[in-house]
């Protein structure tokens, strides 16, 4: 039997390392595009200042990119080290996506990132611009493939269980690629990355404007970030991830917990703006609701219902019972492939096999589960309401704030007075952490919201873990803690140093500190 502590520690380690990685990735996504835009302007206009912008923001990009690469390898390792049964069970579907990501995206970005930094004097303007665009393309392609892989975890399509090999096997790569959840996730996440890059450039440019130095440089950077940021933040909000929450059982459970919708309401459902979800009484205290809105957002209609938590749990209870039958007949089938009776019973219940496996956490045999254990498994078949409810609202709040900042920046840019709006500059500067908070909260909504599954409806998280010792896990957690803390301190130190220095760090002699004869580098 699998040790619960191993599962919990593996989850903790994966969550921490993935969220840590996600501090750097969105900035890479966004900045690489902004670099490509800045350099395009340079090539088209021939103005040196845009080349300086590409190079300076490129320096910051490099500091961040190194951390993205460092922490990205961790994730690929961890599927194997900590989630070995997962790797076996769904490797046939999930693995190829990572392989293609490597061949199509990682090679592209990591080959051209070197040329981006070292190729300035060896390439023609157009060649270097192409390099920068390929770098940006590589980062976005990598997001595409990993989100297709993640989309499959949320809504597994195009695959079937094979009892001979005891794993899920790919049946249609097209279904996996065009998985609606994956497509929505890709657009939402990539746009969130663009917002992150824009907020970073906007906020730091605002800092230079507040300090009244390198104004020409900062105003141009500010302008590009405001335009690109506004377009991106609108994409994030309009193409919100939530539009994907009506497809698939587990996605519906996510929606219900986000909204703390305990009972299925008459269509169109109302939206709970704020309140205190109470897991014990299964009600939301002090709820402030807005009629119709949830139904409209979630179903894009006024007559479709949005499933409530109690109905979802009742459905899951039945599926767990059906899953027990699937599991029982699977065992018979494994012993004797020619048992036709078992085969036909298994076939008719196999869609619920995953639900049966939920019981593995409570009893290794599954088929001897007591009613109390079935009840326990049912209760834990969806994520907890409060974390979902609050993280989602936190994310949306950050999004709305950023929409305001970008819209205001864009507006005052159009009026050519943005650099004089000190309140806006301050807001942009202090708003720099917003996209990071939104990204991390969004990660929690998507991945904690998937619990108790690694593959929705197919493979419980509990079963996915490797057979490793608790001691090994404490050791690796300690290792990550030490490395990641030290690296973060170093990264932030370098980043702050170069941000303070600004374009003077390019040593062109044209910028603030060099003009004053103060060489700080």
């Amino acid at each position, binding site marked *: 039997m699998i040790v619960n502590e191993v599962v919990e520690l593996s989850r903790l380690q994966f969550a921490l390392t993935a969220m840590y990685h996600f501090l750097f990735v969105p900035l890479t996504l966004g900045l690489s595009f902004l670099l490509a835009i800045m350099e395009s302007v340079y090539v088209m206009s021939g103005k040196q200042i845009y080349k300086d912008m590409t190079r300076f923001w490129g320096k910051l990009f490099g*500091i961040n*990119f*190194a*951390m993205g690469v*460092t922490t990205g*390898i*961790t994730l*690929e*390792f961890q*599927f*194997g*080290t900590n989630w*070995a*049964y997962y*790797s*076996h069970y769904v*490797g*046939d*579907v*999930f*693995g*190829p*996506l*990572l*392989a*293609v*990501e*490597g*061949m*199509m995206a*990682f*090679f*592209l970005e*990591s*080959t*051209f990132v*070197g*040329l981006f*930094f*070292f*190729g300035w004097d*060896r*390439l023609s303007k157009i060649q270097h611009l192409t390099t920068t665009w390929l770098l940006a393309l590589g980062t976005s392609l990598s997001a595409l493939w990993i989100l297709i892989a993640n989309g499959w975890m949320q809504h597994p399509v195009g695959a079937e269980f*094979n009892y*001979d090999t*005891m794993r899920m*096997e*790919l049946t249609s790569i097209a279904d996996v690629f065009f998985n609606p959840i994956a497509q929505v996730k890709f657009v939402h996440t990539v746009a969130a990355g663009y917002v992150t890059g824009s907020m970073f450039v906007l906020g730091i440019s605002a800092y230079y404007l507040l300090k009244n130095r390198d104004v020409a440089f900062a105003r141009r950077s500010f302008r590009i970030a405001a335009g690109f940021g506004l377009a991106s933040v609108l994409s994030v909000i309009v193409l919100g991830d939530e539009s994907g929450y009506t497809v698939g059982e587990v996605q519906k459970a996510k929606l219900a917990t986000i909204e703390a919708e305990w009972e299925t309401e008459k269509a169109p459902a109302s939206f709970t703006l704020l309140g205190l979800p109470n897991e014990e009484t299964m009600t939301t205290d002090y709820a402030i609701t807005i009629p119709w809105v949830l139904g409209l957002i979630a179903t894009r209609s006024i007559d479709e219902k949005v499933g409530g938590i109690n109905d979802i749990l009742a459905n899951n209870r039945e599926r767990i019972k059906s899953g027990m039958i699937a599991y029982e007949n699977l065992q018979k089938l*494994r012993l004797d492939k020619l048992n036709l009776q078992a085969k036909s019973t298994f076939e008719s219940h196999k869609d619920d096999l995953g639900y049966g496996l939920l019981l593995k956490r409570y009893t290794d045999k599954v088929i001897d589960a007591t009613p109390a254990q079935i009840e326990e498994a049912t209760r834990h078949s969806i994520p907890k309401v409060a974390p979902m409810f609050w993280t989602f609202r936190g994310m949306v709040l950050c999004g709305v704030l950023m929409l305001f900042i970008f819209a205001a920046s864009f507006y005052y840019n159009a009026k050519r007075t943005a650099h004089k709006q000190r309140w806006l500059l301050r807001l942009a500067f202090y708003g720099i952490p917003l996209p990071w908070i939104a990204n991390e909260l969004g990660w929690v909504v998507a991945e904690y919201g998937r619990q108790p599954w690694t593959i929705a409806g197919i493979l419980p998280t509990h079963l996915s873990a*490797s*057979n*490793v010792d608790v001691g*090994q896990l404490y*050791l*690796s957690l300690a*290792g990550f803690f030490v*490395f990641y803390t030290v*690296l973060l301190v170093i*990264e932030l130190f*370098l980043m702050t140093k170069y941000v303070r220095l600004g374009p003077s760090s390019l040593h062109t002699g044209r910028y603030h500190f060099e003009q004053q004869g103060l060489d700080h580098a």
Partner: protein
Amino acid sequence: MLDFETLRLIWWALLVFLICGFIVMDGFDLGIGMLLPFLGKTDDERRVMLNAIGPTWEGNQTWLVTLGGISFGAWSLVYATFFSGLYTGMLVLLFGLFLRPVGFDYRSKLPNPRWRSAWDWALFAGGLVPAVVLSLGAGNLIIGLPFQIDSDLRSNYTGSFWDLFQPFALLCVVIGVALLCLHGAVFLHWRTEATLAKRARRVILWSSLVFIVGFIVAGVWVAVGLDGYRVTSPIDTHIVANLLSKTVTKASGLWLANYSTYPWLLLSPLLAIIGTGLVVFLSAKRHTGWAFLTSCLVVVCVIVTAAGSMFPFLMPSSISPTSSLTVWDASASRYTLNILFFATVLMMPIVMAYTTWVYRVMRGKVTVEDIQNNKNVLY
């Protein structure tokens, strides 16, 4: 759709190809990392070493990342068993790999000598640790790892991290480290000049010697001492085989059985030995580019020798030989292998084409003057 037997053979070959790609391409980066504090006596010299590989090392490391993805996709059970079984070892490898991306980018961003020296040692560890862990892992693969696959196809590993340090595996570490130092030194000899190139030549001499001796001793050991494995039940190469239904024997010398079945396989170890001699000769004659190409050939031959001796085994199990993972019972489904094959055939030539272009753009020797003229731009 290609038939299952062909696909599995192709995927075995592609796995070997990717391992070769990784060691050929990133092997010299790892080697230069290990040599960094010893060959570079001054800050400028160290920067020459770093910038000789700086613009391209990141793409080279991607071979490892892709190798991970490919083994996950085409050989899931091997990926799952290897990574979880060698849990601590893989984490040590991972922590080692952490040091290079940040090391390259951050080292020269501050002028402080203590900062730079600290990063130099980090880059040294970033070369040494992966080289040691990977060779240790390879040695243990040849010995066989203590794991068992249960009827749910869950793998249970019973060894500990310290059990990896077996005599034969330690010999493999010596071979691996020497080989990568050789490969790195040959690259440096090609891409640098003056004192640094002279020091690289000295490394070529001793590392090739250590490598050759180690490689031959390992060969003799495999022939007369070390247990090899062989599948004794009939294999149907066209079907989805039940992993646990085969029988496997374990006995000394079995790893050489493939050489009597396929005598041409002997070319591989022979070329590795002859090639190493040729590397030394070509370096002495200052044909540095040719020496590097030959060094790449040596690396490929070493990997092909190991993989070829073990075929069809991918991961033999020392405690439950039946649980051993082979080409015929540990692959992905036929559909997945087929799709992934076409994806690979389509994409890898493109990758190799633009990689070649980037190397062409960045060609030429890196000199101390280059560093001094571009001290704020280069690594």
